[in-house]
Every structure is written in C-alpha cells, then in structure tokens.
C-alpha cells in the first residue's frame, strides 16, 4: 500500500539499564499525526524497546511484526543484528505486547502485519536500533581500554581492538554501555559490508514447526479453560430473535449457552461437547435486510453502475476521442468473484476476563485491532487489557480483523472463566471478510496497424480504503486500483476510473488486495492488445516500458529464464504477465496445457525486483506460496451469495490446489539497491494474469471471468 512513510521522522532514543544487568535500546516514536490509538490516548506512551543485551551475551530482539509463514520472525532480527554485528547464534526473540510504541510507521504507528509492510515499515527503525546499540558498546569498550572509539571494530557479538589484540564480549559491556549517552545519529552500513542481510539464514521458527511444538492460537491452554463454539446467523447482518438452549444444555459437557453480539455461544468442557451443543441449539433468526440478496443481483447492480462514468484515477490524453477516432476499438467486461481467505487454522481466540483484568491469547495480524476489540468487549481500561500473540496458522489478511477477539472476550466474560472460541471450517468460510467482487469494463483503441492508442478501464468494487477509514476527496480507492492506475506501458491515451458501491457483504483485505484483481484484469487485457497488434506478448510489453527500466529488467529476466519463444512440448503454451504492487515488481511466465477444458499448470517462472534483499530464500518461498495462492483462486476460488448466505462451506466446495496439481515454481531475483519492497503478496496478484494469458495462447480463448471453469474451455483445445 502506498501509505506515506514516517521513517524519516525524528526518532528519539532511550536507553535504560535492564533488570539483572544489560542494555536496552529503543526509540520513542514521536507524535504520529493523529494516528494515536486508544491505548496512547489513555496515557500509555512509554519508551519503546527493540533489543536487550544480557550480561550472558544473549541478544533478545522484540518482534512486533507477527509470524504467519512469511519469515518476519527471522528477517526482523536480521535487520537489527546486522547493524549490531551480533552473534546470530545468540539471537533470541520475543513477541511485543499490544503497545503503540511498537507500531509500524507505515501504518501510522498501528501494530499491524499486513500489506507486505513488515520490512518496508520496519527496516530503518530496526537497523538504527542495532547501530545505536553497537555504537554505545563500542564507546563502552573505548572507555574501558582508554583507546579511541575509531580504533575499535565489532564482529559476532564482540568489540575488538586489533592493535592490541584485545576482545570483549557485548555482555560484559552491557552495564557500562547503558550508562552512556545515546549517540545523536548513527551511520548505517553500506550494503557491501552486510554479513547477515542478504544471506538465506535458516528461519528461526522452522525447527518447532516440524515437531508439533509451535504454539498456534488453537493450541493455547489455560487452567480451567472452557471451549466455545459460536452459532452465527447464516445471513449477513442477521441477529438472534430468540433461542431455546434446552437441547444444547442437555448435551453432557455443555456448561453455558449465552447470547453474544455475533450470535449464541455454546460453552462446554471440550470442543466436541461444544460442537454437539451447537448442532442441536434452536435459534430463531431475524435475518435482516440482506436475506433476499443473491450474487446475480450484485452483478446486475455493478453492471448498471459500470454504465456510468466513475471517479477519475488517471487521465492522460483524451481516451474517449481516441477511441472514437480510432481505426479499431473493442470493449471487454471482466469479472472476479468474492474470495474467502481460508487460512489453514480456523479463526479462534482465547480470553480470560475478570472484574479487574482481561487477558487475550490470539493468532492475530493486528495487536492494535485485537486490543481495541478486547477493550470494547470487556469494558475495561486499556492498561487492564493484555494481548498475547501466538504463531498464526495463516493470515492472508483475514487475521487483521478482530471479530474472533470480540467473540472470545464476550464469551469469557459471560462464563467467568477462560474460554477458547473455536470456529469450525464452515464458520470460517461463511463468516469471512471476503475479497470484494469486481466488475470491470475495459476499452482499447488501435490504429490502422493494430497498435494501441487508447486504454480505458472502469472498475466497480467495494472500497477497501473505507475499511481503513474513508475514501479520499477525489473518491478514488488507490488500494483497489493498485496495479491499474499505475499501468506502466507507453500508450498515448490512458484513463482509469473507479466506482464505489457496497451491497453489504462483509469484505476486506485478501492477500494482494486490489492487485489480486488488477493482475488478472489489466494484464489479461494488455495481452489481448498485444495479440491485436500482431506482436509477441513479451516484445509488446518490452517495447512499451520506456519510462520503467526496473519493470523492463524484470520482464527480460523472466522471459530469458523461462525460455520465452523457444519450442515447447506438444499442446503446451506460455503466458506472461508483469505487475508492480507493494513496492515490488514481479514478472511471471506460466506454462500450461489444456485437455478437454481441464487446465494443467506445468511450471511457473518468477522474476522479482524487490529492492535489496534480506533473505533470498524467503523471497523464493513467498514467490512460491503466493503463486499457489493466486493460481488456486484463479482455477477454483469463488464465494457465491444466495439469500444473503454464503453457499460454500468446506474444502470440497471451496477447493484448494493440492500436491498433485501444484506446479514447480522457479524464482529469479533481480539484484537491486533500491529500498526494499513487500514480498508476501505480489506473486499472488500476478499469477492469474500469467495463467489466463497462457490459456489464451494454448486455446485461443480469452478468460474474462474467474474462476476458470472447464465449461469455458471445453472444445477449444
């Protein structure tokens, strides 16, 4: 997301002696322009602490960005450890509490792991914290040995005086360093001096993810804890009219049946009893005003809106005149469905609410959002509400919400005991905040030779920016349009329009967000333009990137590595796509074949320019996982609405790519000195584009509507 960075704001540093001896370095975050959270307003503004160096030489790095598989538990410490010249083997980590001092500057100080913003938001703070700590340790050694600080070097957790061959471990200097003044400014290392950054160090979370020890939210155990299932109205916006708990309470092990904000909580000794109780609970719903809404109604309404001009996101030249005066023009309609996140670990949260305190254990992407939800649901002041985070069994944007926290705090408050709320897969599928449905009209005009002279796009979608606050005054949602308004190609007339509407289905941030749609729509349409111009899909793009050398380099790399233009096995074809999103440029080539309508993806090549790289292997892993996520959506993903309810319930009707369908994915990284971009999402965005273009190459059939159905392709190849 192109949120303004606060990275270059003044950071005040504070050092305190740690209890038991040690050095703690952190930064006070200055005022964040009205982005203060409730907790801040309640006067909790304390020093913010990123690193603790123990007298035992341990280096503990505090993590505010949460681990959901994207590798932040390792990449964040690498940033700090690099500047500290720490001994990587001595690095320990601990999770930050919900506390505005640990906020991500890219979110105005809110603690949130989203929008591929962990490295982008945190790299400067963490490197500066490491460099500051290092400078103070060096100063402490200089004092001890009565030598100039500039005669000292550091390596692997030691300060070294080469002239006299003396060395001292950081732990031995910690107390002395803590008493020293904080240096005014620190110089960060030049990339050529990196020892830790740029290496594929083994991820710190992986060992406990292969032996069952890693603690996810669902694994939280508290003394005397009960388990709750929440029965929710199947219709969005519906409410409990009345319920009869007799049958549910008759299930052995069921302790309590209580109405909460989102439905009825069945609280029991264990999951199985709660589940059986939930199944026999009798609830009469007031289904509310969405009870007659169907997906077809939404499409119809969007199509009507798309008949009218939208708000202007980008306008170069005169597209309408160019289309009117062109030798040829054509129009296409693209559609993309609602999508569920379907994290592998269903939503859950554990809470313990007492008259004077509330504790919450939660797999969340947003400590701040969870904290605020728990404060609201418990009615307790901010400083009495504690959030403890666990590993996340997938996030993909779903766990930036806090509905499950509200469920747990309300249930625990009613029970007077610790309660773990466990959603079923069906609850999870039917009560998500879906990737918004999209209807887009696309127009193009070409000259007599078939070369493009105009590109026009009009997108209708629920506004993602409204989920964060509001639309800007121009009414354009730049999050929804990421990858579209930034179309990089040289086309003389470009116009991009946006129309907001909201049919009332809950929607939100789904891995790669707006770009999850534009990667398909824009790159699919550009490919059709290339075909109309009679040009090769790669050469067409390459010839029109005169203002974007980084894009061009990525495109060329992926074409080279994929053997673009070289002969293929019988029936195979390649498709290419290129997209910039989250500050990263990704090019992809997909190789597919289509048999009787069934698409087989044989291999995907990725080239990526994401600025300077912390861990190449993590980049590769994210390219792989993100591509599978995007292909899954394009080939299988669709949430449909019938009578205000989600039709899909499980993994049989909301299917996933599995082992037997997963293509090999090969990633190539462009060496770059640019500031780091995000890596968790871009490959998801571009996957559908490369895929539909490969399908067009294989079958001659363009895909305008996702997911791709065999019926669309039968008889084509």
């Amino acid at each position: 997301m192109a949120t303004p960075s606060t990275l270059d704001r003044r950071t005040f540093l504070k050092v305190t002696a740690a209890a038991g001896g040690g050095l703690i370095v952190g930064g006070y975050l200055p005022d964040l322009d009205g982005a203060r959270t409730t907790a801040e307003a309640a006067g909790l503004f304390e020093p913010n602490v990123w690193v603790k160096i123990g007298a035992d030489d341990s280096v503990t790095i505090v993590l505010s960005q949460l681990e959901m598989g994207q590798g932040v538990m390792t990449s964040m410490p690498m940033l700090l450890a690099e500047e500290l010249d720490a001994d990587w083997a001595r690095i320990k980590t601990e999770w930050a509490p919900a506390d505005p001092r640990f906020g991500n500057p890219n979110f105005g100080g809110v603690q949130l792991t989203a929008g591929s913003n962990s490295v982008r938001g945190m790299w400067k703070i963490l490197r500066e914290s490491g460099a500051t700590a290092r400078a103070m340790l060096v100063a402490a050694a200089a004092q001890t040995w009565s030598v100039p600080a500039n005669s000292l070097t550091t390596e692997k957790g030691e300060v070294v005086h080469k002239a006299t061959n003396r060395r001292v471990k950081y732990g031995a200097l910690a107390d002395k360093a803590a008493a020293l003044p904080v240096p005014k400014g620190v110089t960060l290392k030049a990339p050529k001096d990196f020892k830790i950054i740029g290496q594929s160090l083994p991820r710190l979370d992986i060992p406990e993810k292969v032996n069952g020890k890693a603690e996810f939210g669902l694994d939280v155990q508290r003394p005397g804890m009960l388990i709750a299932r929440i029965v929710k109205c199947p219709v969005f916006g519906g409410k409990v009219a009345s319920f009869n708990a007799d049958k549910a309470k008759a299930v052995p092990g069921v302790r309590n049946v209580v109405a909460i904000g989102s439905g009825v909580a069945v609280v029991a000794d264990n999951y199985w009893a709660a589940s059986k109780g939930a199944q026999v609970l009798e609830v009469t719903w007031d289904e509310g005003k969405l009870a007659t809404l169907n997906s077809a109604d939404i499409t119809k309404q969007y199509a009507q809106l798309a008949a009218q001009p939208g708000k202007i996101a980008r306008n170069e030249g005169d597209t309408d005149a160019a289309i009117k005066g062109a030798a040829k023009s054509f129009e296409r309609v693209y559609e993309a469905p609602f999508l569920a996140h379907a994290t592998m670990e269903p939503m859950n949260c554990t809470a313990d609410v007492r008259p004077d305190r509330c504790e919450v254990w939660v797999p969340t992407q947003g400590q701040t959002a969870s904290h605020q939800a728990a404060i609201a649901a418990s009615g307790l002041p901010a400083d009495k509400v504690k959030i403890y985070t666990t590993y996340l069994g997938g996030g993909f944007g779903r766990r930036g919400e806090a509905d499950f926290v509200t469920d747990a705090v309300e249930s625990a408050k009613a029970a007077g005991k610790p309660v773990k709320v466990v959603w079923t897969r069906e609850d999870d599928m039917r009560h998500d905040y879906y990737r918004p449905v999209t209807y887009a009209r696309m127009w193009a005009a070409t000259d007599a030779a078939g070369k493009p002279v105009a590109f026009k796009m009009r997108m209708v979608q629920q506004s993602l920016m409204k989920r964060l606050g509001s639309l800007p005054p121009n009414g354009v949602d730049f999050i929804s349009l990421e990858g579209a308004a930034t179309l990089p190609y040289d086309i003389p007339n470009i116009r991009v329009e946006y129309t907001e509407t909201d049919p009332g289905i809950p929607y939100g941030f789904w891995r790669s967000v707006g770009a999850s749609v534009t990667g398909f729509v824009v790159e699919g349409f550009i490919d059709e333009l290339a075909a109309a111009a009679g040009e090769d899909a790669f050469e067409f793009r390459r010839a029109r990137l005169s203002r974007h050398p980084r894009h061009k380099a990525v495109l060329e790399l992926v074409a080279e590595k994929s053997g673009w233009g070289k002969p293929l096995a019988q029936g195979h074809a390649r498709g290419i796509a290129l997209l910039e999103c989250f500050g990263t440029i990704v090019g992809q080539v997909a190789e597919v074949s289509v048999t009787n309508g069934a698409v087989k993806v044989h291999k995907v090549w990725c080239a990526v320019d994401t600025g300077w790289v912390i861990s190449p292997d993590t980049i590769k892993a994210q390219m792989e996982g993100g591509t599978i996520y995007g292909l899954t959506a394009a080939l299988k993903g669709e949430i449909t609405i019938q009578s205000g309810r989600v039709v899909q319930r499980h993994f049989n009707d909301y299917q996933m790519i599995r082992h037997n369908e997963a293509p090999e994915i090969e990633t190539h990284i462009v060496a770059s000195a640019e500031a780091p971009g995000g890596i968790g999402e871009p490959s998801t965005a571009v996957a559908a584009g490369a895929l539909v273009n490969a399908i067009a190459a294989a079958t001659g059939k363009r895909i305008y509507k996702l997911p791709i159905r065999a019926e669309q392709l039968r008889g084509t190849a």
Partner: protein
Amino acid sequence: MVSLTVNGKQYDVDVALDMPLLWAIRDTIGLTGTKFGCGLAQCGACTVHLDGQPIRSCMTPVSSVGAKKVTTIEGISPTTSHALQVAWIAEQVPQCGYCQSGQLMSAAALLAKNPKPTDADIDAAMSGNICRCGTYQRIRRAIHRAAQA
C-alpha cells in the same frame, strides 16, 4: 472411560465415545501438535498413525481405536531427528506451519512402506493434505531428500 495408547504411553480418557480421536489427543491428553483444519477428512491437518497407517483423526471416533497404537507428530522422534524432520528443515519447508504436522505424518507413512517414492507416489500419498501456504514443491523435495538419507 476409553483407554488409548499414544506415542507409547497409555491414557485413560473420560470422554464421549463418539468424540473424534483428534479432540481426545488435543483437548484431553493435551498433545496439540496434531491440528484441526476441517473436521471432515478434507484437509489432512489432523493426520496421525494408527498402527502405522495414516488416518484422519478428526473423523475417527475414540471408540473405534481400541488397542491400536496411536502415533502423533510428537511421537515420531524425541529429538526432532526423523529423516523427514531433518529434510523439512534442510529444505526450509514450513511457512505458517499449521499443516506441517499432518504433512509429515502422511509423508512418514509413505516412506515407511515405500522408501523410494516417485513423484507419482508422492502425489498419491500426499494429495489429501492441503497446504494453504503452498509449500508443495518444498515438501516434494524434502521427501526425496529424506528418501536418499
């Protein structure tokens, strides 16, 4: 009261007879390495071994287990040194990690009866295990690596 043998240890658990083994293992015995993903035998997150056979514990009532030996992820190696665990770390397989206990248990059952599986064998044995993070190609590499160890 049901008697279960899990990872070589006997547990007498006082639970409903129709309770799936998954919840007895997780909620009652307290071994949380085995995961809940769907409850309908559609995802494989809950895979454990019953006398060495991979089963979906989310749809296996405790009453049907009898004297059969249950092995969970916690039971395949006390020191995280099973060839597959070593290979999983070497290939840096897990992302979120939530599916990985199930993946490892399915892979362990595969290697036990087929020490040198082909890609097709891996597809056949592993396709019941979903990984939403998309770690499939690393899992495949790790299985081949373990098979060569």
